[in-house]
């Protein structure tokens, strides 16, 4: 009886130990999966120490390492929460001998290690980038229209430009050719008094009423 009890006690102790080990391993695995910023080298000796193949032994070294990892994770998570812009990135490194089956490259030509980087899409960054892009694009339209309206033809330029000035009205998209104000005859000034306006007002919509002819007269 007593022997049976002792034996049962041994079995219970062993199963308890096994269960404890399993829980410990699964929690470690979960922690590793959940740690978004983990930069784990699965082939490094450090990673091997954490691998499930080795039994868990509570030691001051492991406890210290766990504590430092936890604090580092906390700092990183806080920085992420504060919007410090740290990329949510996972990097995996592995010796190329582990990927022999898929590489198809000879051992000599193959690089010694393979590094895979995976990153979550940061929608905040993408959205803000799109807003800046659209804003900068829309705000530039008037600049292009302004150049079309007032191409700033030199007043004392060559024969072609002296005679005429090209004016485009952005609303009607009509290109209007007209005489320069300082070259108008008195009759024209009487009939078109608004043409006395300064050159800066050439782009005024009133000029849209000028007779439309070919804009690119040579």
């Amino acid at each position, binding site marked *: 009886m007593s022997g049976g009890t002792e034996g049962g006690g041994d079995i219970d102790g062993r199963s308890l130990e096994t269960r404890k080990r399993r829980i410990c391993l699964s929690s470690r695995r979960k922690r590793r999966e959940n740690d978004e910023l983990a930069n784990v080298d699965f082939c490094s000796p450090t990673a091997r120490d954490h691998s499930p193949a080795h039994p868990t032994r509570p030691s001051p070294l492991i406890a210290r390492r766990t504590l430092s990892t936890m604090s580092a994770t906390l700092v990183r998570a806080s920085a992420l929460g504060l919007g410090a812009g740290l990329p949510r990135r996972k990097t995996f490194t592995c010796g190329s001998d582990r990927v022999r089956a898929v590489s198809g490259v000879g051992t000599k030509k193959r690089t010694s290690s393979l590094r895979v980087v995976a990153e979550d*899409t940061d*929608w905040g*960054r*993408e*959205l803000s*980038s*799109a807003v*800046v*892009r*659209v804003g*900068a*694009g*829309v*705000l*530039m*339209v008037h*600049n*292009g*229209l302004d*150049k*079309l309206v007032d*191409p*700033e*033809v*030199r007043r004392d*330029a060559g024969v072609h*430009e002296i005679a005429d000035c*090209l004016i485009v009205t952005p609303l009607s998209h009509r290109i209007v050719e007209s005489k320069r104000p300082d070259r108008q005859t008195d009759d024209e000034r009487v009939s078109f008094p608004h043409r006395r306006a300064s050159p800066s007002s050439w782009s005024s919509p009133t000029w849209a009423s000028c007779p439309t002819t070919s804009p690119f007269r040579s």
Partner: protein
Amino acid sequence: MVEPYLGFLPHDEPLSFVTWTYLAAGAELAGAAGLTLGLWTRLSALSLFSTMGAAVYFHVAQSGLEGFPLGVVEKHQYAYEPAALYCLIYFYFLCNGGGALSLDNALRKKD
């Protein structure tokens, strides 16, 4: 603007300084449309970056650096400041591309 400050641009027939102005206007309109939609973002950003670069050059040639970076100016901003800001924005999109929310990305995914 083009002739006095950007006189180094080729202006022999069939080109003229007015042609350059119209080319800049076309680049600004087409580039603005492309950038807004996110279509050919890098090319659009390059065209806008070049026109804004010319604008910065024009303003700096016209009014100088105005005591940049510590100079306090009467108009509360440097003459070249908006153009320089645009220039930097377009440089960002030139390097970075349109991002996930752009037509470029949608078309790439389709392929």
